[in-house]
C-alpha cells in the first residue's frame, strides 16, 4: 500500500514538473495517457480498448486512462481527440465507423479522418457473419437472395442508420438486386434477438455472440462478410464467393490528433504491437474472432483512405445519409 502511495506521489510530481515546461520527448511518456473510446462502456470497441490499454500501460510504465465519449456514431469522442494537443497524451481507439464510414454518412462531420488524424497502429479486424433465425425458411445465401426477389422482399436488422451492419445489408441489396428492407435497432444484441425470434429475416453481426447461438441451433450462419472468411467460423463461406466485390470488415485502429511527433508515434506504435502479441490479448482475440492488424505503420494512411473510398461508395449507392 505504501509503495503505491509513493508511486502516486511520483506520478503527481512528474505531472506537475512537465507542466512547468521542457517536456523532453525522449522521456515520453512521463505522465498518464488518456485513451478516448468514442463508444459507450460494454461495446466491443470498449472491451478491446480496455484490454489493450491495460497491457500497453504495463509496457509503457504509465497508466492509460480509458475515457468513454460516446455519441453520434463515435463522432463526438473522435472530434474531441483531433482537437487535443498532438503530444501523445491523448489518443483514441478509431473504428471502421469513426475513421471511414462517418465521413460519407455525416454531412458536417467535425473532422476529416484522412487529414486530422495521426494513425498509430492497426489493432485488428473481424468480418461479420450473416445470420438468420433457426426457424427461417432460408437455408443458404441463394435461398435468401431468391426470397428477397419474391413478394414483399425480406427485412434485415442493423445496429443503427449508417452503421457498418446497415451498409453491409445495403451492399448485399445492391449486389444481388433483391428487395431488402432495413430495420434499425438500438443495439446489435437486441437486433440479434429479433433475428432469433424471426421478427427480422437476417442480420450482419459480430461473429462472437452470433457463433455461440449458431452452435446452439438458435441461429444459422449463411455467409461471412470478409473475402478471407472468419477464423472462428471457417466452415461458413464468404459472401464474396457468390457475389464478387463483397469484402467488408470491422476494424480497430489506434490514432492521435494530426501532426504527432514521429518518435512519440513510433513508441506508441511499438507499445500497441507488443500489447497485441501479449498472451492475454492473443487469447481474447482468438475467442472473439479478431485477427491482429496486418498493415504496417507507414501504410495506415493509405488503408484509411481506401476504406473511406470503399464505404463512401456503398453509402452512395445506398443513399444512406445521416446528419
Amino acid at each position, binding site marked *: 500500500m505504501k509503495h503505491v502511495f509513493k508511486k502516486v506521489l511520483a506520478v503527481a510530481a512528474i505531472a506537475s514538473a512537465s507542466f512547468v515546461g521542457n517536456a523532453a520527448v525522449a522521456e515520453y511518456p512521463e505522465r498518464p495517457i488518456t485513451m478516448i473510446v468514442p463508444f*459507450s*462502456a*460494454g*461495446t*466491443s470497441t*470498449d*472491451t478491446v480498448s*480496455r*484490454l489493450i490499454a*491495460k497491457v500497453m500501460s504495463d509496457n509503457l510504465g504509465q497508466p492509460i486512462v*480509458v*475515457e*468513454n*465519449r*460516446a*455519441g*453520434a456514431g463515435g*463522432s*463526438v469522442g473522435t*472530434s474531441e481527440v483531433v482537437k487535443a494537443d498532438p503530444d501523445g497524451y491523448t489518443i483514441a481507439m478509431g473504428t471502421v465507423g469513426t475513421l471511414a464510414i462517418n465521413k460519407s*454518412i455525416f454531412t458536417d462531420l*467535425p473532422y476529416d479522418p484522412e487529414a486530422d488524424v495521426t494513425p498509430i497502429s492497426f489493432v485488428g479486424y473481424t468480418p461479420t457473419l450473416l445470420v438468420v433465425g433457426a426457424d427461417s425458411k432460408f437455408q443458404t445465401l441463394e435461398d435468401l437472395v431468391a426470397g428477397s426477389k419474391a413478394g*414483399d422482399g425480406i*427485412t434485415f436488422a442493423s445496429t*443503427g*442508420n*449508417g452503421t457498418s451492419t446497415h451498409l453491409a445489408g445495403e451492399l448485399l441489396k445492391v449486389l444481388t438486386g433483391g428487395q431488402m*428492407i432495413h*430495420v*434499425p*435497432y*438500438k*443495439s446489435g*444484441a*437486441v437486433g*440479434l*434477438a*429479433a433475428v*432469433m*425470434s424471426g*421478427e*427480422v429475416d437476417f442480420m450482419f453481426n459480430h461473429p*462472437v*455472440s452470433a457463433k*455461440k*447461438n449458431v*452452435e*446452439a*441451433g*438458435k441461429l444459422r450462419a449463411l455467409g461471412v462478410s470478409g473475402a478471407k472468411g472468419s477464423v472462428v467460423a471457417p466452415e461458413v463461406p464468404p459472401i464474396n464467393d457468390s457475389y464478387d466485390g463483397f469484402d467488408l470488415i470491422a476494424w480497430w485502429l489506434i490514432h492521435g490528433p494530426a501532426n504527432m511527433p514521429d518518435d512519440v508515434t513510433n513508441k506508441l506504435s511499438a507499445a500497441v504491437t507488443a500489447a497485441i502479441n501479449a498472451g492475454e490479448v492473443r*487469447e*481474447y482475440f482468438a*475467442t*472473439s474472432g479478431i485477427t491482429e492488424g496486418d498493415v504496417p505503420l507507414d501504410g495506415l494512411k493509405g488503408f484509411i483512405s481506401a476504406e473511406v473510398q470503399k464505404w463512401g461508395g456503398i453509402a452512395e449507392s445506398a443513399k*444512406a*445519409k*445521416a*446528419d
Partner: protein
Amino acid sequence: MELLSNLALGMETAFSYDALLYCFIGVSIGTFVGALPGIGPMVTISVALPLTFGLDPTVALIMLAGIFYGAQYGGSITSILLNLPGTASTAVTALDGYPMTKNGRAGLALFINAVASFCGSSLAVLLVMGFAPTIADFALGFNSTEYFSVMLLGLIAACTMSNGSTLKALVMVAFGLVLGIVGLDLNSGVPRFTFGFLGLTEGVSLISIAMGLFGIAEIVTKLAESKNGGSAAEPKVTHVPFRDMLPKRDELRRLWGPILRGTGIGSVIGALPGSGPTVAAFMAYAMEKKVSRTPEKFGTGALEGVAAPEAANNASVQAAFIPTLSLGIPGDVVMAILLGAMIMHGIIPGPQFISAQPAMFWGLIVSFWIGNVMLLILNLPLIGLLVKIITVPARILYPVVIFFICIGSYSVANNVLDVFVTLVFGLVGYLLLRLNYNAAPVLLGFILGPMMEENLRRSLVISRGDLTVFLDRPVSVGLLLVCLLLLLMPLRKPLMRYIRMAGQR
C-alpha cells in the same frame, strides 16, 4: 434432483472465501454508490472492471453483479430520506417514501425498502434458477408489436399515478415524451431538437433529468422555504428505536400483496431486453394504486407505495440476468458491461453457457442470494444511523449533494454539457413544484416515449405499413384490451348512474 446437485455446485463456488469476500465488497460498494445521487452502477462497474482482471472470472462477476443489485438497495435510501433519488429507478420510491419520512416514519420506510428489496430479489433469483431458458424464450417471443403494447400500457398507467389532477399528470407525461424526442432519430439518422449540440445527439441523459427534476429542485425548494422563515414540514426525527422501525402486524399483512405483485411485474419487465428497472418500478406503483382499496392514500406515505416499486426494481435487476446469461443478449448498458467483462475473461455467454459453465452460472446465482442476505444484514442496522442524515444541517448536506449530482451527471458520458442540462432541469423542476405538478410522470414519458416510437415504427416497417399487425398477435391484443379497459374505467361510475336513472324512468 438435478437442481439440487446444481445448487450444491453453486454453493461450493459461492461459499469459497474469495467469492464471499468479493461479494461483500461488491454489494457494499453498490449500496454506497447507489445512495450517492447521480453516481450509478454503470459508471462504478466500468471503473471497477479493470480491477477484476487479476481475479478468477467467477469471483470477478460475483463482485461486479453485486455492485449492480447493491445499487438498487442504496438508491432508495436518499429517495426516502431526502426526496433525492440515488438512481432513476428509485424516483418512484420517493413518491411515498419521502412523505413517510415527513410523517416521522423514516425508519419504517427504510425497513420496508430493505425487506421488499430482499423479497423481490430472492423470488426473482428463484425464477432465474428454475426457468432461465424458458423465460428467455418467452422474452424472445416479444416482438416490437408486443413491446409497443406493453409500453402503451405503462404510459396509460402513468397518467393515473399522480394524485390530484389527471390533466396535470397528462401534461407531465407529454413533457416527458417531448424530451424523449431529442437526439438522433433511429430510423432516419436525422437529429431532432439537438440545437447543434453534438452532445445532445444521444438524447438528453436520464440521469440529468432525474437529478435535476428531483434532486436540484428539492434543494432549491428547501432553500426558498428557509428564506421565507423556516420550514414547517421539516421532519424532526433524530432517533429511531428499533421498535418503531418494524411494521405493526396489520401493516405487515398489507405488505405481502404489493411485494408479490411488484416482484411479478419486475421479473417480467426485467427479463425483456431493453426495458429496465425504472419502467418496472413505475408499473408496479401504478398497478398497486389501481388495485388498492385506498388509492387516495398513495402519495401521502402509503406503505404499499414503497414496497411494490422496491420489490419490482430489485426483481427486474435480477431477472435482467436471464437474457444476458442464457442468450448472450444484454438488456441494458450495465448488462452489456457485465457481458463485456465475461468476454474479457474468455467466457462468452450464449445458450450453452449454463451447461458449459455450470460452476460459474450456479455460483453466480447462489452468490445473488448470499449478496441479498448480506445487503439485508448490512442495511437493517444502518437504518438508525441513516435517518440521522436528515439532521445534518442544510448548509453542509446540500452542497455535498449538489457536488455529487454534478459529478454523477458528468460521469454518465464524460460530458460537461450534461451538468448544465441537469442544472436547467433543476430550475424546471422547481417551477413544477411551485405550480403543484408532480414530476414523476415526466420520467416515465421520457423513458417510454422513444421506446414506443421505435417499436411502433419498427412494427410498421416490418409489416410494410399494415396497422392490423397489432391485432394479429394474441399477447399484443390482450395488452391493448387492458389499455382500453384502463381508459374506460373512469367512465364506469357515470355510466352506471346513467343506466340506473334510465331504469327508474
